[in-house]
């Protein structure tokens, strides 16, 4: 059936209508902003500790379930609208941010702090991170059995089953079409996701740049010893960094659910790699770089899947990463939390 076969990468010369291009651009930016928000956790922790927190993907995943469960708890109905819908979404945002922030702090406490105090080599922390990541993921994937052991299966049935399948997110906000010009559409959910993600990132950047604690974070990332000499408590800064990254990942998780609609216990794996890629692409340790990297990655994925078919989406984006790093090894905006000051 030649008519229905996926487009071959060897025949890319198809004309793409302008409206399709605009749609791809817009949704690419929406997804990219989510990647950017998620990527902040990798970038912040790297900036302060020179450590890749591989458990950050699970911080995101736990936040996504917190949002789903909040909607279950509130008995929300899809598309019901009204002021209640806005309130529900805000509660889901708070739940996701709180749970993600708490999981991030837990990871720091359990998987990293002791290793840092013992001045262990970085590779040990990496293994510890991977272990923490599997733990967090599998606890979620086996939550039905855990509930069974505790005899809470009946009460928590709606929350724990099916543990290893996709779980739907109920979005009470109707998805209205705000704009439709010759096929180019802007939907309300997409616009909310994009604006909210950008607003969160601006807020974080301002916090790190202007607040006293934020300056402490920048100081530790630029020169940890000098920061200690100036009275910055590194332990507090590290905790704050994990917390901030977790809060942002929680927000990203809710926005992701609004855009995609489902989550599962291993959703963090591929998404975490994407967000990490965004961080590296923009320049790891660099807050604005995370946003730029996320947006570039989102666009590349969308354009790539249009040109070569969606099966090639990830190939295109990772090829882009390799090419960018070949020419700019420190990423688009360069490394370091502090040098990103502008």
């Amino acid at each position, binding site marked *: 059936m030649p008519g229905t076969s996926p487009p071959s990468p060897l025949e890319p010369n198809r004309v793409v209508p302008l409206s399709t291009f605009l749609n791809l651009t817009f949704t690419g930016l929406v997804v990219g902003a989510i990647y950017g928000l998620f990527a902040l956790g990798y970038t912040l922790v790297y900036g302060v500790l020179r450590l890749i927190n591989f458990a950050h993907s699970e911080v995101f995943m736990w936040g996504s379930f917190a949002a789903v469960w909040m909607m279950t708890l509130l008995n929300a109905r899809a598309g019901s609208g009204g002021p209640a819908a806005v309130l529900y979404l805000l509660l889901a945002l708070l739940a996701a941010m709180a749970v993600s922030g708490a999981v991030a702090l837990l990871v720091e406490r359990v998987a990293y702090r002791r290793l840092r105090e013992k001045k262990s080599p970085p590779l040990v922390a990496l293994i510890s991170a991977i272990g923490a990541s599997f733990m967090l993921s599998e606890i979620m994937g086996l939550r039905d059995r855990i509930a069974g052991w505790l005899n809470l299966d009946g009460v928590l049935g709606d929350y724990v089953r099916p543990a290893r399948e996709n779980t739907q997110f109920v979005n009470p906000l109707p998805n209205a079409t705000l704009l439709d010009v010759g096929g180019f559409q802007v939907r309300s959910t997409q616009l909310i996701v994009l604006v909210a993600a950008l607003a969160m990132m601006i807020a974080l950047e301002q916090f790190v740049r202007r607040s*006293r604690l934020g300056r402490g974070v920048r100081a530790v990332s630029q020169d940890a010893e000098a920061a200690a000499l100036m009275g910055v408590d590194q332990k507090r800064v590290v905790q704050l960094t994990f917390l901030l990254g977790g809060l942002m990942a929680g927000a990203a998780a809710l926005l992701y659910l609004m855009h995609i609609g489902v989550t599962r216990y291993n959703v963090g794996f591929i998404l975490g790699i994407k967000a990490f890629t965004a961080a590296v692409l923009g320049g790891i340790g660099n807050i604005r770089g995370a946003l730029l990297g996320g947006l570039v990655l989102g666009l590349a994925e969308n354009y790539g899947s249009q040109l070569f078919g969606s099966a090639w989406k990830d190939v295109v984006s990772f090829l882009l990463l390799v090419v960018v790093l070949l020419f700019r090894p420190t990423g688009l905006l360069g490394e370091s939390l502090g040098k990103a000051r502008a």
Partner: protein
Amino acid sequence: MSERALGEDQLVVEGLSVNYGRIEAIRDVSFRVPAGGIATLIGANGAGKTTTLKTVSGLRTVRAGRIVFEGEDISRVPSHQLVKRGLCQAPEGRGTFPGMTVEENLDMGAYTRSDRKSAAYRADMDRVFTLFPRLAERRAQAAGTMSGGEQQMLAIGRALMSRPRVLLLDEPSMGLAPKLIQQIFSIIVEINRQGTTVLLVEQNAAQALRTADVAYVLETGSVARAGRCAHGVDPRG
């Protein structure tokens, strides 16, 4: 006046030993810093000067001995708590925050102060700019783009922003041109005159001895000699 009247010992280090792993970095180091004076630790590269200073600042772990600051044992106090107690170090070389502006660096010096943005804070900022006019010219410049001498001045100015009662200086002359060294030392004397006790670690022994009231010579991790200096030679002359 060949010798100044000096107060009680404000900082006392007794029998200090520090290891890097299994290697002994300093052994049984003792010295005293009189209140209102300038004390100096001099010695060759690798004699243990910087290690000693970093240990006083809480950046290295004390294996044996103790450090007493204004009557209190601070041997186990973590470095970030020492600033509030009145002890602040300007680290050697380029220990500034490279991605921050001059003004942000100075502000980091006031990190533990609760009166930031007050009149007293502004006055301290002005005092630093008066001592170091170069820094005033470069307020908005990123520290990482400045010369070694300018960064050294910034590191000293930043430490002053914490209003230390004892200022620790690690090799302020390192890598500087002779003319600039003169300038930095005369500023150290001025800071001391304004009421701050100074502990100065230096490789430039001649200059340090001309500036200090008391001197200790470190050799391979131990104090080899100690004594009062023939003060009164104007370091600017």
